């Protein structure tokens, strides 16, 4: 009995290690690549931990390539698209849940199924015609395609589970619909809003395809900027890996810090941007 239980435990831990290691080893290797000089990155057999760390890979990325500008662009695009998304998406989720108009959420589903490129062609022409290219505005607007559906979807699900009694009591006390929403529904929904905010930020931050079409030299976001590093620096893996790690680091930190909310949001809405 105990012997078989020990065997079961060993089997379980073996399975756990098998499942988790590809993810962990990848990021360990990414870190290793980013901390090695070119000689070490070209060594065979490969070196995991170099004798000398190449911190210069990071300083090179941070100092050159207008990293600051691109970082600011990413913050502005993701921040504005998420804030605007929350501004229209949270009330919409509330209204749709209260009207029991969840069938209209099909629009959200269709948006989820639409390839990102099919928004790009018409909006690209529109932005050109309006003379907006060269500013961050086109990217902020098109990122709404990512953030608004995610937020509406999660908020409908959340408002459907919040109790109606408090809202009804407030209505009887003479509060109008706006006051009920603002002072009763919204505070209760804060955890749901947090989930929507986090997922919206992550998927907007990660977006690449909108940037490669709409961004000019000055308006690139970080994913586009790091992709463009390939053509500039032929096969210098160290700085490229360092750049890649810096781009995705905020998202990875957020994933670890807000793990519970992310898991809740993904299983409830099963959303993905783009």
């Amino acid at each position, binding site marked *: 009995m105990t012997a078989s239980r020990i065997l079961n435990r060993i089997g379980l831990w073996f399975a756990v290690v098998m499942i988790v290691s*590809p993810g962990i080893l990848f990021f360990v290797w990414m870190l290793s690549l980013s901390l090695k000089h070119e000689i070490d990155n070209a060594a065979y057999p490969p070196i995991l931990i170099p004798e000398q760390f190449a911190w210069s890979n990071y300083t090179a990325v941070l100092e050159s390539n207008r990293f600051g500008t691109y970082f600011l662009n990413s913050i502005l695009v993701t921040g504005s698209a998420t804030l605007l998304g929350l501004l229209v998406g949270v009330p919409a989720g509330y209204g749709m849940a209260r009207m029991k108009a969840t069938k209209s959420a099909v*629009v959200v589903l269709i948006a989820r199924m639409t390839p990102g490129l099919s*928004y790009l*062609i018409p909006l690209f022409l529109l932005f050109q015609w309006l003379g907006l290219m060269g500013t961050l505005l086109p990217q902020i607007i098109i990122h709404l395609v990512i953030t608004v559906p995610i937020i509406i979807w999660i908020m409908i699900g959340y408002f459907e589970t919040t109790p109606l009694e408090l809202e009804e009591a407030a209505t009887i006390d003479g509060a109008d619909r706006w006051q009920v929403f603002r002072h009763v529904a919204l505070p209760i929904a804060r955890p749901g809003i947090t989930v929507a905010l986090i997922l919206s930020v992550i998927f907007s931050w990660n977006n690449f395809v909108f940037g490669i079409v709409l961004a000019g030299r000055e308006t690139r976001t970080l994913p586009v900027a790091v992709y463009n590093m390939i053509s500039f620096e032929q096969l210098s893996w160290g700085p490229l890996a360092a750049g890649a790690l810096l781009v995705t680091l905020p998202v990875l930190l957020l994933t670890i810090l807000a793990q519970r909310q992310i898991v809740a949001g993904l299983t409830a809405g099963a959303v993905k941007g783009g």
Partner: protein
Amino acid sequence: MTSLALEKSERAAARPARGRRHTRSYWPFVLPALVVVGSVIVFPWAFTIWMSLHEWQIGGGSSFVGLANFARLGTDLRFHEALVHTIYFTSLAVVLPVVLGLFSAIVFHQNFKGRGFLRGLFVMPMMATPVAIALVWAMMFHPQLGVLNYLLSLVGIPPQLWVFHPSTVIPSLVLVETWQWTPLVMLIVLGGLAAIPTEPYESALIDGATGWQMFWHITLPLVMPFVMVAAIIRSIDAIKSFDIIYAITQGGPGTASETINLYLYSVAFAYYDIGYGSAIALVFFLMVVGLAVLLLWLKKRSQWTEMGAGA
């Protein structure tokens, strides 16, 4: 003053008929979102349909050509090739993550130390910026300097060309996609496992069922609807996959890994053939919807037969 009083009396009068009023008065909450959705989602669709009926080059003029762009799809060999690549890539990129995700969910459903933390690490690949991880995968795929061929040599497998050979490029890209999206399947199925009641297991134990029998006859049927949901979501994402393929191979070598989405990108933003690109976008969208509907139908049918078998 008067308006306030009016409102008050109106509210009092409306109270009995609240049910009807109820649904109408939430429109102001939804309206801003409707405007946004209308302008960034519905308008582009309408405009795309309009453009697909025109010969339209960026920088050039446009002229109405009817359904000529759609007819062109029938004779475009590169489109046919892309269609084959898409089917090949999508089926692999759905089946592998679903199978591995189901297995991972069963493992994560057990109780062990540090489960929450390890689940957090496990989820990292799907949250990480796709382009960033694609660049690192590209380095790992390098035939001479890449770490993957070194790992293969440790177990005595000859070096591979990975994404640099037409016959291995799609399986290699599927490897990245599987690595990235198995966690999503795991999370969805894990939610399903958590919802299974314990009673069937208790009675099965009394009847002397083995662990394997319980898995096959209780766990799997009960968790199947969740597996199907995961498969549907995975299909929609896999068929649209862009970032990973574009960043690692750009559809190459040659056009060996060019899926419809990548071909669409080339037509619209490399050749600036807007009319034809719009036609491809429409057909592609219909394919995604068709796939989703087909899978939803399969899901419904599988649930029905389960119920039939149970009765």
